[in-house]
Every structure is written in C-alpha cells, then in structure tokens.
C-alpha cells in the first residue's frame, strides 16, 4: 500500500473540513442523527417506571422481563423486515399474513405429512422468500404502489392459509425440535459466552477502526466519546445477559433476534448493498443515475423482508406450540409500529435496525404491563394506537423542522 506516501500529506483533512462552517445543529437534527434514540429510550423508561410502581415491582422482576422479551421476538423479527422495506420508502402490509402462512406451511408439513422439522422449516423460509419475491417484482417492475401490492398479498395469503389448514382452526405442533427453538434457554456457557464474544469483537472493531483512521490522518472522534460508547454498549449487553441469567438463562429466541438484527446491521452499514438501500430510499433517481440497479435492490429487500417474516412465523409457532388459521390482528401494526417508534422514517432512507428493539420493547411493555394490571384488549389497543400516532407525529414534525431549515 502507499500508506507511507499518504501519511506525508495529512493536509487535506485540515483544508477541506472546516468545522466552523457546520451550521449549529438544531434539536430536530440532533434527534435525527446521533441522539435519535434518546426520546424513545426515555419513553420506555417512563413506561417501565409507571408499570413498576403500579404493579408493586412485579413488572421489573427478571421473570417478567424475560417473558416480555420472549413476547416481542416475533414482533421484533417482523419489525426488522419492515425496517428494511421502510428504508426504501416502501411499506409491506403483508408481513403478518406471510408470517402466519409460513408457520402454517411448516405445521402442515410436519404434523400432517410427516416431513422432518429441518425440511419443513426450510419450506417455510422458501415460501416466505417466494412471497417476497412476488411482492418485489410487482413493485419494482410493474410499478404498482407497494401499499396496494402487499395489501392484496395479505388478503390472498390469509385465504391460502385457511385453504392449507382445510378448516382446522388450530394445529398443535408436536415436533420437539421446532418446539425447542423458541422455548429453550441457552446453557450458561453459551448464554454468557456468545454475547460476550460479540461484544469483544465489537470493541475490537471500534478500536481497530479508531487506530486506522488515526494512522491515515483522518478525523477521529474524541477518545472520551469513544470510551463512553464502548462502556454504554458493554453495560447494555452484559446487563441484559445478567438479567436473563438471574431467571432461567438467555432464551434461544433472543439470540435469534439479536443475531438477525446484527446481520442486517452489518449488511446495511458495511456493504455496498446496504448503502444502495439507503440511497434508493433517499433519492431513487440519484441512485439510478449512479448506476445502481434500483429494481434489483427493491426485489431483494422485499424478499428479505418476507423471509424474515417467515422466520418470525416459525419462532411464533414454536413459542405458541401451535399454528392458527387466525392471523393475530395487531401483529402487522405492531411490527411496523416498532420500527417507526424506533425512529425509522416512513418516508425512506433514515433509521437504524438497533432502535427497533426499543420500539418493540415499548409495545411489548405496554401489552405486558396492561396484562399485569388485568386490562382488556380494549384498553390495550387504544393505548397502543395513541403511542403509534405520537411516534409517527414525532417523525413528521422532526422531518418538517429539518425541511424548514432549507439548504
């Protein structure tokens, strides 16, 4: 490498980047960038504090929190898929139907046709990928608004799954492997080891990146901020592990969820594909002119979204020990809401996959907390509706505040 040559001229950094020219960031802009998660986190803390106080501490017990996290696994995985589609500036209204359809495909294959669990799960995932492929092709090539395509798909698939179940309303899953997927807890060695390993890799990467930028004469973030970042991530990861360990251990489904989020995060932020997803969501015409195959990106993202929905369906069937003909009526909105509450813009191009955990936790906490207070579906749905409207309103307001500043 010409590293040595480059090192001799660190001048560009100082001559091109003039920090004083940066307009003082407004609160709205801060909320859109680095600190976007803070209001969401505060909301979550307020909700948690409220339920902790009104349920006499029951809400914050490790047992309840473990259950809460298990309850949001499916929403989280679906929200991950929704996030990908939202980043494109599109929407997928078929995630709940696809998720349920795929779980039915798996259930029917194992329970009625004696197919082994592995093949049945694979069939479910392939079904998911196919439905996403169809959505994507219709959106990308026939140019039908994704809203319509996926709404039609949702209706169609809810009929298809009724057909597959042939009148049966609930199909119990007996297969032990499938049941173990979401209901098992990892042994302590793995439960503590895997997250810690991931954490160490993350810290190593952050430090490596810092050193490398420093060496090449690029601007680095202040060391205290870097350390703070590492400390915060460490506290979150090890805190979560400690919480789970003080009940039954780290649930396997949590590892699935965080693993999938991690994969999508790497894909979105470290690869050209992810960059293209953001580019298409930000300005599809600019992306096209830059030589990006926009239809291909759209098809790929819709396929990934539905495949994730299928994974969510498999995990839900495993946790519920059954597949049902009835699609959970709040599942679709919950998963999109989790993404939007987590700061993913409905207008495309903005948002991170990590914050959807916060969104899913808020929705899960409301549901779980109101359950503890023995509130019915009526109250739960009204509260959730209000929270969702607030989240979307915040998104729109922040966006407008930014637009007002102009260029």
């Amino acid at each position, binding site marked *: 490498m010409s590293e040595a040559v*480059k090192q001799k001229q660190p*001048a*560009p*950094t100082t*001559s*091109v*980047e*003039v*920090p*004083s*020219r*940066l*307009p003082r960031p407004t609160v709205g*802009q801060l909320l859109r*960038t680095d600190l976007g998660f803070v209001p969401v986190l505060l909301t979550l803390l307020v909700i948690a504090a409220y339920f902790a106080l009104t349920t006499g501490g029951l809400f914050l017990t490790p047992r309840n929190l473990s259950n809460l996290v298990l309850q949001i696994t499916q929403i989280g995985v679906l929200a991950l898929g929704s996030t990908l589609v939202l980043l494109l500036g599109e929407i997928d209204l078929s995630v709940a139907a696809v998720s349920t359809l795929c779980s039915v495909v798996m259930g029917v294959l194992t329970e009625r046709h004696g197919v082994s669990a592995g093949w049945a799960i694979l069939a479910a995932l392939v079904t998911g990928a196919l439905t996403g492929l169809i959505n994507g092709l219709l959106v990308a090539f026939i140019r039908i608004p994704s809203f319509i395509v996926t709404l039609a798909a949702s209706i169609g698939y809810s009929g298809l799954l009724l057909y597959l179940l042939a009148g049966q309303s609930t199909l119990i899953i007996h297969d032990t492997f499938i049941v173990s997927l979401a209901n098992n807890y990892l042994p302590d060695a793995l439960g503590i080891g895997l997250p810690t390993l991931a954490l160490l890799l993350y810290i190593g990467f952050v430090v490596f*990146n810092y050193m*490398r*930028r420093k060496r*090449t*004469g*690029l*601007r680095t973030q202040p060391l205290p901020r870097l350390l703070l970042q590492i400390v915060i991530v460490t506290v979150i990861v090890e805190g979560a592990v400690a919480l789970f360990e003080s009940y039954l251990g780290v649930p396997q489904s949590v590892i699935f969820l965080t693993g999938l989020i991690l994969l999508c995060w790497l894909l979105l932020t*470290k*690869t*050209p*594909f992810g*960059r293209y997803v*953001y*580019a298409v*969501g*930000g*300005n599809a*015409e*600019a*992306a096209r*002119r*830059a*030589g*990006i195959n926009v239809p291909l990106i759209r098809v790929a993202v819709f396929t990934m979204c539905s495949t994730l929905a299928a994974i969510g369906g498999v995990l839900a069937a495993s946790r519920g020990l059954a597949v049902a003909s009835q699609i959970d009526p709040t599942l679709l909105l919950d998963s999109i809401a989790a993404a939007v509450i987590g700061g993913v813009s409905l207008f495309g*191009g*903005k948002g991170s996959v990590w914050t959807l955990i916060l969104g899913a936790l808020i929705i899960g906490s409301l549901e779980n907390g109101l359950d503890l207070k023995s509130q019915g579906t009526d109250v739960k749905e009204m509260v959730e509706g209000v929270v969702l409207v607030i989240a979307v309103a915040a998104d729109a307001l922040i966006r407008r505040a*930014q637009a007002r500043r102009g*260029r």
Partner: protein
Amino acid sequence: MADSSISTPTAPSRPGQTGVAEPRLRLTGISKAFGAVQALSNVDFEVYAGEVVGLVGDNGAGKSTLVKIISGVEQADSGEIFLEGTPVKITGPSVATRLGIETVYQDLALCDNLDVVANLFLGHEELDIWPVLSEVSMEREALRVLSVLDVKIPSVRVPVSLLSGGQRQSIAVAKTILRQARVVLLDEPTAALGVAQTRQVLNLIKRLREQGLAVVVISHNLADVFEVVDRVIVLRLGRRVATFDVKSATPERVVAAITGAEFGAEVDANGANGGGLQS
C-alpha cells in the same frame, strides 16, 4: 449563415490551445428532430482539454438537446461525435460515463440522507475485502479530490442535506472528477445560488480547467459565463450562430447573437474594435 466561417477566427485567437490540436470532444453536423420540430440542424461543437466553453442560447435554442446528445440521453438523427479524434457512438448515459463524459444536472442527483463520502462514491464504492466497504480509503480519496477543487465543507461525514447550495454543487462536480471524467458538462450550475455560493462554483469551474478537463457550461447568466469561460458558443433556433472568444467579445454582442434581432446593428457599432466575430 455558415458555421465554418464563424468558428474559424476563434481557433487562431487561442494561442495557448494551438488551433491544430484535436479537440477533446468534437461533434460535427449534428441534427435532431422531435416530430415536426427541428431541435438541432447541422450543429458543430468542439471543446478542448483545459478549456471552458459556455453554451448559451435562448429557451428552445437547442442547448438541452445538444447536452442530452453528448450525455447519451438522446441520440442524434445524423452527425458524428469524436472523442480525442476517435469517432464514438454514445448510445446511452452509461456509455457516456464509460467514455469519461459526465453531466451535472441542475437537480444535482445527490442522496440527501447520505454523507458526502457516500454520495461521492455512490455506485462506485471501494471495498476492503468483499463485501466490506472501505470507508477509510474512500474518505481519504474524497478529501483529496475536494482539496484539489478547493471545496470547503464542515465535514465529509455530514449528510449532504446539511450543506449549502454551493457546497452541494461542489459535491456533484467532485463526483465527476472521482470517476476520471475527461469532459464535464454543467447544466445551469449557478442558477439557484446566492452571490457567495456562485463565486464558490465559478472558482470550482476554474479548478476543473486547471485539472486539464474539457468543461462545458450551459448557462443563462452571461455575467457568470464571461467570468469563467474561454469561448462562448451561441445557439439560436437549433443552429450554431456565433462563437466568441471572451477576451475580445462583450456581453452585449453575445446577447445580440442570442436574440438575433438587433444582431446587425451591434456588429456595426462594435465593428471598429475589430472583434473575433464575423457574420
């Protein structure tokens, strides 16, 4: 009016460019009709390396059509295109890009949500090892190109939505340099800009010339044109009607050529000065 008789006097009047040298880009006898409308008839066009050419004309004069033909968006009905003397067929925008012909349109085509580095390398990302983006080397290269163009921005890691109009224009232009452009076409680069930002962009155009690029500026603003260009080519009603060397021309005479109406009178008035214009 014959094109040749107008363009000949300009070539010798550019000593630095040596009239014998082959232009970086040359178009001959370009015609293009949209239905019954003849947008361009038998137009010649040339731009040399290290030269800035201003392409001016009234609305409907055929400027946009000519630019679209050069950038591959439209194909000419007849005529030939030579890139450094080699005949080329520009059958699409991607072909133009491959040949090193880059166009910066008025709308800039930037992704507001992406940072400066991401925008500069969009579609041409560098990788560490597949499929990992090489942020460090892209950032270095971005800083290098921006410093060559003397662009000042707060940081290359801010989303371009936070930049001023002039800065955004600079990013759009820097993008073409990164792709090793040989010919850069700028469509109304100063149209939406304030005074200071216009200055910034004009400075940028001068930098492009210093880099040895062939630059074509399409503009309505004659003051800007006269500030940076070496030659002005005037289109009117689909024909090339005049070519001026800015050193020996005045904005009044260019306006006269653009509008056509009071052309003769202006020539009489300035005739004694012995300009480069013949009619």
